[in-house]
């Protein structure tokens, strides 16, 4: 399987990438390629131009500043998993990255690609939603910040405009106050369902993977916990208001059941 023909440009800077996106209607950015190239091989995507941002090493970093952690969009899953700063200041990101795909995937895939691809079965978007992360986008007229709650707009759709590049993701330094658990049936499979739980500003945030067209906050669980419900009672609310898919890995009913079980495990991991 070979992608259909396209033109290729290697971007030397983020601004050059933005310029190329602005000049071409049917252009796409290429980061690690581990979501885009599989789609292109199947010809589900056939952009006329690929703008390769994979060499923008200035967008690969993990820095701490003012109680938050700034992560460059081109930081690979492998580098997230191996980051001492993250292990100490926001461990749930490193732990989640370590469980993505397999080593070969983690050597190529980036956090920015994972977020922008906006696949509801992906792990990091759910964790970033629970963390109330901020996404920084750069376009022709400068930078803007987008709250995670506004970023994931639909199945494989994000709030980024066609001529914007995601440059940075900012997360709060919550130390070890976060957990992500997922369930899959075979090694290397995507999550059938996943649940992130984090303590932030005195509240418990819970978010779900693969329970709808986007990563979702488990509002029922969060409200029950805020009202003083115990872990078991709150977890039972996990699938409230969700519309999980049915596929070969599980029916919608099975996923709803799994969401409650995994929410309970994630909350227990948070307390443990």
């Amino acid at each position, binding site marked *: *399987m070979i992608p259909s023909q396209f033109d290729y440009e290697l971007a030397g800077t983020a601004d050059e990438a933005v310029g190329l996106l602005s000049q071409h209607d049917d252009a796409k950015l*290429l980061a690690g390629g581990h979501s885009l190239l*599989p789609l292109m*091989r199947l010809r589900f995507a056939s952009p006329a131009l690929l703008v390769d941002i994979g060499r923008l090493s200035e967008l690969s970093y993990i820095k701490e500043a003012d109680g938050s952690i700034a992560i460059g969009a081109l930081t690979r899953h492998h580098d997230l998993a191996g980051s001492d700063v993250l292990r100490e200041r926001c461990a749930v990101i490193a732990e989640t990255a370590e469980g993505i795909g397999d*080593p*070969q995937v983690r*050597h*190529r895939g980036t956090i920015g690609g994972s977020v922008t691809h906006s696949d509801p079965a992906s792990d990091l978007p759910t964790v970033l939603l629970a963390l109330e992360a901020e996404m920084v986008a750069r376009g022709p007229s400068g930078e803007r910040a987008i709250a995670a709650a506004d970023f994931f707009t639909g199945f494989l759709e994000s709030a980024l405009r066609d001529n914007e590049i995601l440059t940075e993701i900012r997360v709060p330094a919550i130390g070890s106050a976060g957990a992500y658990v997922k369930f899959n049936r075979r*090694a*290397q499979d995507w999550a059938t369902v996943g649940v992130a739980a984090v303590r932030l500003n005195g509240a418990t945030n819970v978010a779900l993977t693969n329970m709808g067209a986007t990563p979702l906050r488990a509002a029922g669980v969060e409200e029950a916990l805020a009202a003083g419900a115990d872990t078991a009672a709150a977890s039972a609310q996990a699938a409230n208001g969700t519309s999980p898919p049915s596929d070969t890995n599980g029916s919608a009913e099975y996923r709803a059941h799994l969401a409650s079980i995994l929410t309970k495990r994630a909350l227990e991991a948070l307390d443990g």
Partner: protein
Amino acid sequence: MRRIGMTVNGSPRTADVEPRELLVYVLREHLGLTGTNVGCDTSSCGACTVLLNGESVKSCTVLGVQADGQEITTIEGLARNGELHPVQQAFHEHHGLQCGYCTPGFVLAAVSLLNENPSPSEAEIREGLEGNLCRCTGYHNIVKAVQAAASS
């Protein structure tokens, strides 16, 4: 078409490729290095694993143009002066292969794993080889081979 240059198994190589050509086909068809196999073409099986700047990648999921200017190691580049690489030797001694189709990918995935973690536990070996599938061996002897290579 564009010309790309890579250091492949220590030697400079060039190829004129279309941007859509995947690294595995550049290696096999332009450079004649057919030791790297294509098992699935869908990023699942790991048969196409090579080292890109020393790290394992699935070469069916990397464009040739993305490898321009980089260092690639394939199975053909592991032996030194007629002596098998310790991981190859361990696969041989511990019978870590049957049909051998998955083997180049497993060997390179194992080399990358041991670079990152020189003395992995059995569980770490199994997890570290998660991206590679074998239809013959049941994995048992592959894990043994990697354990032996780690302690050699």
